[in-house]
């Protein structure tokens, strides 16, 4: 076949582009199931909520329960710990947002915005740095210390020092009674 070079687009150019486009769309469509299969399956997405009985937890005690595969801290704070958290000015906090699923996304990280009842602090046990589980009653602020990379949280679970960028997350929860909460 003779080849000619013309400035005008030819029918052949159109066919090349059309064929190429179909091939790209087809390849993307074929690739998507291979990529998406790695996302959480329906079984994983069927998230459960849990209920936690608060009666055995003493003042000054922190317990860890499993919630959606992650640790969740339920801590019954002493009056001193509550006062310490409330005394911190907002300007001292590296992360100014409450990170509380019970509140709007832009709620400030005041002590009041980190709790429903002051005595009970319910926070995720996943360090916001690289996902380790911090240890309670350690660190400079009496809240938690993450041994992996040294992040320190205060008695409201707010990041105060170290590489973690955010406060410990607070999941949606509610009090079913004075001694029972439902998380999730």
């Amino acid at each position: 076949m003779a080849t000619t070079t013309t400035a005008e687009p030819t029918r052949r150019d159109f066919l090349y582009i059309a064929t190429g486009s179909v091939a790209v769309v087809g390849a993307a469509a074929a690739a998507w199931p291979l990529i998406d299969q790695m996302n959480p399956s329906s079984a994983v997405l069927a998230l459960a909520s849990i209920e936690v009985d608060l009666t055995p937890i003493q003042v000054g005690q922190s317990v860890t329960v499993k919630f959606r595969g992650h640790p969740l801290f339920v801590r019954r704070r002493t009056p001193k710990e509550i006062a310490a958290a409330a005394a911190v000015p907002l300007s001292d906090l590296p992360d100014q947002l409450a990170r509380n699923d019970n509140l709007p996304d832009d709620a400030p990280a005041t002590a009041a915005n980190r709790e429903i009842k002051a005595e009970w602090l319910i926070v995720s046990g996943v360090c916001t740095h690289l996902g380790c589980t911090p240890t309670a009653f350690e660190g400079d602020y009496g809240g938690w210390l993450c041994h992996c990379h040294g992040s320190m949280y205060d008695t409201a679970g707010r990041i105060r020092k170290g590489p973690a960028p955010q406060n410990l997350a607070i999941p949606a929860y509610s009090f079913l009674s004075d001694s029972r909460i439902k998380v999730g």
Partner: protein
Amino acid sequence: MSGPSTYVPQTDLTRWLDSRLPILRLAHDTVWTFPTPRNLNAFGAILTFCLGVQIVTGIVLAMHYVPNAGLAFDSVENIMRDVNYGWLLRYVHSNGASMFFLAVYVHMFRGLYYGSYKAPREVLWILGVIIYLLMVVTAFMGYVLPWGQMSFWAATVITNLFTSLDQVIPHLGSVIATWLWGDFAVGDATLNRFFSLHYLLPFVIAAVVGLHIWALHVPGNNNPLGIDVKGPQDSLPFHPYYTAKDAFYVGLFAILFAVLVFYAPEFVGNPDNNIPANPLVTPTDIVPEWYLLPFYAMLRSVPQKLIGVLVLVGSLLTLAFIPWLDWSPVRSNRFRPLMKQLFWVFVVDCIVLGYCGSQSVDAVRFGMPMVVVARVATAYYFAFFWLIMPIVGLIETPKPLPDSIAKSVLGTSAAPAE
């Protein structure tokens, strides 16, 4: 692979095969007559040996291992206690990873010292960096499989590195992490896919090793003098000279390997990994395997999450740019008095970083807070490549280079080889 082939088939059968699939010609030209500099200590054979050992023991272990979060730990215990020679196979495989990294680090430092990355070997060097990165990923995924405490938390911490991208585009990092996990935390889905990829990647490594050798055989080997092969008198055929020499070194390497496997099989391991994975409790001191400690130290030395991750990634990617960072026309550090000293400072720097990575974050050793030491060492790591390499290349006066490999090896009076 470069230059005309010298293969002459000797029998009817090999002539018949050669005109259909010249595989014997390829073998003859690459591992038989391939001209190799007279003054070489090849690490290629040791590294090939390591990859072979890992693949063979790995395939056998996969016949007994169960990639399920509920069963993985017990299946490893079953291998250790009940499977015939299971203890041996697993110890060879787990220590084999350490031996592989030991050999590859010596190989990399030698390449750095002798300037083996310089033109025309840039692609060869980059392929080597790719192999190293694949090795890191493969070793990391393999470390997760026994599903002990260290396995689980290593998987958690490393996959959480991606969440630092949340600081660039909100939720991007979390979406990637969830995609990697197949869950909202490291779990059964994560373990399964890591096993699948851990089985796949060694074969990808083998393929890139093929490219690495191909790229090596175009310009030929660099050598400790860093000067080019100028004629037949400078080189020897690969067989029998280097097959014999390499076999001897593989033997020495295997002795060290055996000492580790039979006398100190848990020496490089972490006792915490004999505790089954517990998603609710992080071990107090979480450390990676020794071969990743320097990079871990660099990550931890930065008090900001995203920058820490960028430093970690940057420290690895920097290696790929070395061919264009070293501006000296001389390859080998034997003839570079200043660079030679800074090179050895760099080696010590890497060891210091490794030591810092092995200590807890708030540790004070020898009267110095380790995090400060790690910061200084991290600064030198980057300065070595991005400042020292180009600047020293410009200001340094190298020593005179020898005329030829043959003269240097055989003495100045030596006539060209037979």
